[in-house]
């Protein structure tokens, strides 16, 4: 079963690497969205530094969401999903494998790009470790929650917009605690409580999402 799990993951990563653009798009969107803010708000370092954490988190969240629509859509359209559903690997494990692959090709690049954008946005240097930790805990949760949305909108017209409406409200706690962690580090307050809350959300998502998303996928296949 483990070999099947790894195979689903490996195949998704390989497809993402071959098709390049799809996963690159999320990072490019993240970069462009962050670059737009100094242009819109003005280049004063104080103003930017105050809102940098918010910009980074909101942009990362939107970038993660943008790439989610295709998570199950392609497999659904070409029949892969029904074949996987008929394989010995439980659909719940398939969901986890696909989300893990999605995180590797979108979440990880977002984390890697964030320090550079943080410099651009004049984020306080003290906040960098908190920024990386917050994004490392947030992005997997974003991918997981998004998987439920992506499974629910399968087969729907204008699935992308519907997905945003479904998923964005669920991203609010992530956003609040991630920004709080980064700001707390900047002001010299303890960061750990916020990170623990983010970790708690991640654990809850890991437990709940596979069942929910798998149930939604079964519904889509019937």
């Amino acid at each position, binding site marked *: 079963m483990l*070999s*099947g799990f790894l*195979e*689903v993951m490996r*195949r998704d990563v*390989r*497809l993402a690497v*071959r*098709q390049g653009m799809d996963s690159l798009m999320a990072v490019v969107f993240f970069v462009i969205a962050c670059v737009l803010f100094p242009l819109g708000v003005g280049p004063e370092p104080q103003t930017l530094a105050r809102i940098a954490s918010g910009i980074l988190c909101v942009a990362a969240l939107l970038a993660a969401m943008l790439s989610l629509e295709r998570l199950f859509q392609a497999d659904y*359209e*070409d*029949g*892969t999903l*029904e*074949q*996987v*559903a*008929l*394989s*010995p*690997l*439980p659909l719940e494990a398939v969901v986890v494998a696909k989300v893990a692959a999605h995180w590797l090709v979108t979440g990880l690049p977002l984390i890697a790009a964030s320090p550079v954008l943080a410099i651009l946005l004049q984020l306080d240097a003290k906040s960098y470790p908190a920024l990386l930790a917050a994004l490392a805990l947030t992005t997997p949760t974003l991918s997981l929650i998004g998987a439920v949305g992506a499974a629910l909108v399968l087969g729907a017209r204008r699935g992308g917009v519907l997905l945003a409406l479904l998923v964005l409200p669920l991203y609010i706690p992530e956003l609040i605690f991630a920004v709080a962690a980064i700001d707390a580090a900047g002001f010299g307050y303890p960061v750990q409580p916020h990170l623990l809350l983010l970790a708690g959300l991640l654990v809850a998502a890991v437990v709940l999402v596979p069942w929910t998303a798998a149930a939604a996928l079964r519904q889509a*296949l*019937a």
Partner: protein
Amino acid sequence: MFSASALACVRGERAVFAGLSFTLAPGGALVLVGANGAGKSSLLRLMAGLLKPAAGHLAWDGADIADDYEAHRRRLRYVGHADALKPALSVLENLRSWSVLWGGRGGAAERAEAALEAFGIGRLRDVPARYLSAGQRRRLALSRLLVAPAPLWLLDEPRTALDVDAIARLDREVQRHRQAGGLVVMALHGGERPRRPRRSILRTRRRRPVI
């Protein structure tokens, strides 16, 4: 032994068929014949467990498949209308994935290559699937049947887009599978006729199935 009793299927609040029963012994084949929309594909999806019957049961060796669906999907291979291929992956990469999923890691590539040879597309192994013709895509989809043994084959209009050579290869594999005690359920579209007289032909017609 695969059997159905008083099976009914409802799709989108429309009754497709009802009161359908059959029994299939090891080595047996069941050919589904009917006009478009008669419910052949729905019946195959019911057999695969992708759909739930509105009434009636499907049973394997007397045990309802709904009771142990995990076990049921381990014993079936389903080839539907969608070929489930990834255009960006090569022919062998496509098939190897399924080989690992069904038969485990050990020897997955060898099993995949043998299956490709059986359907006559061994020489295309490194070609990306996006360059395949419709018939070659179909051959690749059918190769999935052979990557790991499973007693029950569910084939939905498998001859679509196949040339004479591929149909002969498919018939040979079906024959071999049945001789080994496997079961085959195959849907053929209206114009096609089974090659040899079959023991069982199931004609689905809207609402009033006749066996």
